């Protein structure tokens, strides 16, 4: 297959970037999207050019490194996958594919398609944990957790921190990301004690770091490679309101 690629190139955080067009022939449908870029990079390097910088690591949709905005959608046209799981069979021979980095004030571009997502870690540092010291944990089975609660907590916990929710949101809101963690930990008895404090601290940090507010468009939910539900945002709102009432 042959593709016309329009890729955002930017030397570093300070430089202006722009789109560069590449014509790539000889792509096979079995390639993953990232393997297609590997292939492009091989031709670029061999032709004496600099390869396109992009993030990737596990290449099986779990590490959350990959972060490409493809033809107007984070992680490309298919639902419930990360970019690394996208296959070239999803595109038609001769297609034009526009590849951009995540765009958000809180995710500055570092080079080409690489953005800095450390803001997510900062939000986590604000309260995305249960304050239990090593060694202080009680016997694991001393606290039963209903299967429903455990399963729902798991459904929130599978967030891979890729940032597609922010990239998709018209307001660059990190609500789904924050909600997934607050929801997970507030569903579990172990994490309940700190829920109010956690919800407040994480939301304040999110606001402070320049993420927008949620207007419930559900773009994040649809683009989330793990399909994390808006219902977790509702739970975060609830916990936050309760925290507000108590303060």
């Amino acid at each position, binding site marked *: 297959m042959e593709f016309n690629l329009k890729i955002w190139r930017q030397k570093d955080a300070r430089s202006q970037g722009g789109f560069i067009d590449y014509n790539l022939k000889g792509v096979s449908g079995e390639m993953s999207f990232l393997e297609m870029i590997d292939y492009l990079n091989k031709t670029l390097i061999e032709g004496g050019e600099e390869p396109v910088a992009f993030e990737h690591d596990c290449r099986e949709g779990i590490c959350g490194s990959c972060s490409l905005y493809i033809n107007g959608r984070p992680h490309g046209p298919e639902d419930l996958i990360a970019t690394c799981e996208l296959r070239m069979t999803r595109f038609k021979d001769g297609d034009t594919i526009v590849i951009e980095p995540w765009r958000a004030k809180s995710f500055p571009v570092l080079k080409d398609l690489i953005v800095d997502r450390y803001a997510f870690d900062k939000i986590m540092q604000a309260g995305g944990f249960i304050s239990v010291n090593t060694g202080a944990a009680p016997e694991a089975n001393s606290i039963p957790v209903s299967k429903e609660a455990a399963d729902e907590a798991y459904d929130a916990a599978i967030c891979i921190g890729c940032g597609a929710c922010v990239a998709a949101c018209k*307001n660059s809101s990190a609500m789904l990301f924050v909600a997934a963690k607050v929801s997970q930990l507030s569903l579990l008895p172990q994490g309940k004690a700190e829920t109010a404090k956690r919800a*407040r601290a994480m939301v304040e940090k999110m606001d402070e770091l320049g993420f927008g507010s949620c207007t419930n468009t559900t773009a994040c939910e649809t683009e989330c490679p793990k399909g994390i539900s808006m219902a977790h945002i509702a739970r975060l709102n609830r916990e936050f309101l309760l925290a507000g009432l108590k303060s």
Partner: protein
Amino acid sequence: MSSFINASIGKKFLVSISGLFLISFLAVHLFVNLFLLGGQESYNLIAHFMATDYVISVMEPMLAIGFLLHIIYSSYLTITNQSTRPHKYKIVDQSDTTSWASRNMFVLGGLVLIFLVIHLSNFWFQMQFGEMEYIEYGGVMVQDAYSLVTAKFTIWWQVLLYVAAAGFLGLHLLHGFQSAFLTLGLYNKIWRQRLMVIGILYTIVITAGFSLIPLYFLIAHYTT
């Protein structure tokens, strides 16, 4: 409490609460409008009741505050949200992933607001400050609001305006209704579907009600 309002979720809470308040006002408003179909006397009497009842007179400034809160905080959030993505995408494809209404709530709200100004000057302003005819019902002098309203509804472009506004309002509600519940946390996987259905039904009733009444008078005007 100040930290609550300073947070994005706190502001959204005010938008939702005021939104739900305005949503409930719409139902009352439509209920009153239905009296138009009952003829001059029935409408004038209910209009008179609305203008003089103690509870309603308390609710009136509340309504104004509701509008103000809704407009101020949603504007504030919209404006701050504008700055979160200084570098825009070349292509954005959300046609399959989000509803048009959800992406354009501010525009829809603005259109409804413009209509609201016209609507208020058409009726509310007239009734408060304008020259009104009075009719006596059982010894009580009552403003002839019926004639004022039905006269407007015989002008085709006024009716068009009302129908269009009802449409914009409907789109605004379509997202706003369930969104308000989500923001308040009154929402989960089961209620999500229910709220969606209730929201759609409510929107249909409001939109149909507010657009059919002017159309009824316009058609009546041209057919009799």
